[in-house]
């Protein structure tokens, strides 16, 4: 269960005699929990542990006399496994902060445990926007993205760049319905039109009849309101039907660069999606990717990895300012009060509901001829400014927000 991935730093208590910080049990323990071997292993997995370690190194924890230890664990995308790991981490291993946790069902379970035990929870991998809505917690910061920002980014920006007519291919369960509902609302608000929708069983394998309906609808944009292997399979099969070549565009509402990598450009070309971060956007990102990829079997950093790096960095800053890691609420309070700034996400802030605010980007996957090589996959279609990228504070229904 517990796997000590590495000691990031060793305390140099003797050299920093000036200020003695109060670390509970003498060490700051960061627990990175995600899917280490399944569907989400590439977009989070061991790469997130690496990102956390890089953040600790770049922060210079060792020089500042902070002893940091990083643990990693696999939750197998099961909420009961995840909650078991987190309980053991907090009760037995004295972990101070839980990081990453893709799969919303696991994140929601962890959210409650961390609140109960008064530790800190930094979410990068999970999508559910109710983590900063009705389920928001004074111990939680949601860093990278959420369903609202994806639906809004993709819906809004596509309609504004000409994609007026939409057809939805929706996974038939609560998550798919929510994604479809949110995106459709954004599309219609911006003057677009939903010409049809079809629901496929979850999890699905054969999408042909649904895709043919989508093709026959003549909609400009086919919105994929599903996730994981459903998204991959529907994109693959859409490519077999020549849907993108026929002039329609696919918009994935929840997909990552690792999915594009797995599909390959010939299949994924023309796909439109929203992400919070892309390694080839600027020099800082490229430098990070150059350092990251060789240590992660060549897999370039995803927005989830970047989010882990950035969140851990900010967490350590708050600890430095606070000189204590004992009270989770106080730490998150501090994280909210100091503005965020790091080389990957730039300047930003954490709102009262725990939502980290930063710009989002709408990308289109390149054609094979446009790509200069592996991992050169995206061209930027639009930038969604920070103040529009996330759900307005008052709409979330978070009890922490005082109106």
């Amino acid at each position, binding site marked *: 269960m517990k796997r000590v991935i590495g000691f990031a730093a060793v305390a140099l208590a003797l050299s920093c005699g000036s200020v003695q910080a109060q670390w509970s049990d003498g060490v700051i323990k960061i627990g990175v929990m995600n899917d280490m071997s399944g569907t989400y292993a590439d977009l989070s997995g061991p790469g997130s542990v690496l990102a956390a370690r890089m953040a600790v190194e770049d922060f210079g924890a060792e020089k500042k006399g902070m002893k940091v230890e990083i643990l990693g664990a696999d939750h197998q995308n099961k*909420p009961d496994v995840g909650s078991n790991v987190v309980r053991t981490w907090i009760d037995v291993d004295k972990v101070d902060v839980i990081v990453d946790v893709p799969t919303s069902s696991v994140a929601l379970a962890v959210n409650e445990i961390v609140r109960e035990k008064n530790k800190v929870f930094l979410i990068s991998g999970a999508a559910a926007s109710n983590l900063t809505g009705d389920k928001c917690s004074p111990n939680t910061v949601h860093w990278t993205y959420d369903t609202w920002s994806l639906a809004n980014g993709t819906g809004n920006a596509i309609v504004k760049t000409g994609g007026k007519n939409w057809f939805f291919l929706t996974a038939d369960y609560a998550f798919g319905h929510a994604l479809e509902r949110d995106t459709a609302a954004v599309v219609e608000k911006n003057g677009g039109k939903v010409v049809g929708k079809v629901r496929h069983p979850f999890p699905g394998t054969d999408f042909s009849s649904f895709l043919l309906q989508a093709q026959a609808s003549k909609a400009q944009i086919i919105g994929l309101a599903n996730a994981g292997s459903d998204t991959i399979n529907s994109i693959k099969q859409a490519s077999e039907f020549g849907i993108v070549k026929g002039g329609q565009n696919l918009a994935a509402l929840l997909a990552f660069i690792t999915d594009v990598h797995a599909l390959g450009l010939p299949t994924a070309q023309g796909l439109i999606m929203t992400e919070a971060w892309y390694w080839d956007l600027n020099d800082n990102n490229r430098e990070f990717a150059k350092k990251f990829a060789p240590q992660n079997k060549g897999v370039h950093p995803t927005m989830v990895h970047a989010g882990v790096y950035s969140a851990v960095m900010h967490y350590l800053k708050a600890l430095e300012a606070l000189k204590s890691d004992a009270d989770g609420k106080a730490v998150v309070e501090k994280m909210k009060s100091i503005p965020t700034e790091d080389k990957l996400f730039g300047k930003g802030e954490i709102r009262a509901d725990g939502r980290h605010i930063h710009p989002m980007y709408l990308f289109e996957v390149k054609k094979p001829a446009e790509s200069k090589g592996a991992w050169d996959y995206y061209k930027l279609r639009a930038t969604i400014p920070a103040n529009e990228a996330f759900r307005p504070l008052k709409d979330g229904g978070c009890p922490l927000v005082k109106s």
Partner: protein
Amino acid sequence: MKQEKFAIAGLQTRSRSEAIGFVLMVAFVAAAPLFIYPVLMMKILCFALFACAFNLLIGYVGLLSFGHALFFGWASYVSAYAAKVWGFTPELAIIAGTLAGAGLGLVAGLVAIRRQGIYFAMITLALAQMMYFFAVQAPFTGGEDGIQAVPRGKLFGLIDLADQTAMYVTVAAIFLGGFLLISRIIHSPFGEVLKAIRENEARAVSLGYKTERYKLLAFVLSAALAGTAGATKALILQLASLTDVHWSMSGEVVLMTLVGGLGTVFGPVVGAYVIIGMQNYLAQFGQWVTVIQGVIFVVCVLLFRRGIVGELAALLRIRL
């Protein structure tokens, strides 16, 4: 005369070895929190009760149900919902879960016991899958997210179960109570009839037993106890999720029972301990856990077919 004496002596060694086994088990359950993380141990106890309930059906009636996750999972949903939304106290929530298990067991049993062997297994699997998809879609189960932040509440309105020790004692009591009930059922005249049905149903019918009724009652009892286990688990982990109604959970309980020893009283307990312990301590290998489980299953079937406890009992020539 001589034979009779022998039989009585056999009966005595059986009950004596079982009594010793029970004392050892109680001692282990009492001491376990000192060296095993209590939440993990509570989870093991729930699965042990679940496996014992399953063993009642396969080990003593010879009915292989492949849909026991239905009772386990739905009971956990019912108790979680009752505790969270209706504000039931823990004991009422667990009773609600048990009744849900029994009710579902009655319906599933009425349909399934009309067929034998593979058809029985397939009918139970089909019913479980139906209810799985219902759990995915129904709004009150929370779909993918499950029911979270279930309050443990106060037992009888007095004892706060948020306290780890109080919770552990409660779970241990539920487990031991369930275990004793099952062993009482097995050794009762009713249990003897069940065993007769297992050995030769046609002969039991010819002796005048209405085997359908016996089988149905055994099925309902097994489902109700599986429900108790599921309901308790929901309170311990404060979570009811799709994992518990998924068909792989039905498979896992078969595995626990087989590894521990089919048709032995203690086998399922040992099996649950081994399988859950393995899932916990090998969690770092991720999906490999399933592969390792598979290998252990194959080794078990090839080398010690009677399971851990079954082989041990055969070696010591006692019944466990």
